[in-house]
């Protein structure tokens, strides 16, 4: 493992897949979910918000709502709050989320993702839904040297194997 790299796992997240209904814009979604006033859900592959509530852009009119300390009913309340505006479904258990931090984090991810992860193309706040080693990933840059990489739960072991193998040759 390069000295400039730590790999950990983020657990216990609340995640809801949000899909805007016809004619509903990103602002409406953002406001209905209680983002800071005037802050819209991102219409481009970016994320906004904080630990309590973040909206991660995964496609035109679709987001992942994320909460780091969800109550048992958090997902239900998000779904109900969006009634009429967006279709939403609880996907909290769908992902394993790996936190990569350190100077070598971007270099390691660039080994797997064929998407330009160097600033300015990719910077804190950026999101990329792409593929690494035949495994679908959602890459989210948190700050200068740390990223969240979410993979489907069933693929967690295979992805972790790639992570450790690629990191060993940094």
């Amino acid at each position, binding site marked *: 493992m390069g000295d400039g790299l730590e790999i950990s796992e983020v657990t216990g997240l609340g995640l809801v897949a949000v899909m805007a209904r016809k004619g509903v*814009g990103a602002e409406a979604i953002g406001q209905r979910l209680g983002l800071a006033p005037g802050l819209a859900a991102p219409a481009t592959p970016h994320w906004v918000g904080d630990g309590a509530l973040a909206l991660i852009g995964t496609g*035109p009119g679709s987001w992942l709502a994320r909460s780091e300390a969800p109550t048992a009913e958090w997902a239900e309340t998000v779904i109900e709050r969006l009634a009429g505006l967006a279709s939403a479904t609880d996907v909290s258990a769908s992902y394993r989320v790996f936190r990569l931090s350190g100077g070598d984090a971007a270099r390691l991810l660039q080994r797997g993702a064929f998407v330009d992860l160097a600033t300015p193309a990719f910077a804190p706040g950026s999101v990329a839904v792409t593929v690494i080693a035949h495994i679908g990933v959602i890459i989210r840059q948190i700050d200068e040297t740390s990223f969240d990489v979410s993979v489907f739960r069933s693929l967690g072991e295979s992805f972790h194997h790639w992570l450790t193998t690629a990191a060993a040759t940094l």
Partner: protein
Amino acid sequence: MRIPCPYCGSRDIGEFVYRGDASPVRPAADGAEAAMFAYVYLRDNPMGRHEEHWYHTQGCRNWLVVTRDTLTHEIPSARLAAPLNAGDAV
């Protein structure tokens, strides 16, 4: 080869699934069998400019209409297949 996904940006074709020519339009429900036959089976299969359907399965999971040259493989443009609902930026 890379496709300029309107939402995700330029992405390697390994992230997409190709369906085929985007020009045939599914005939109305009560249309004649011949129209459905042509829609399902006959293709222009041109050498040159071709509008085709790709699905961004490892990305934003949208269907795109990509304009591509089947001889040079150059891709001048791509757009979302679904006309966007009002208010979405892309």
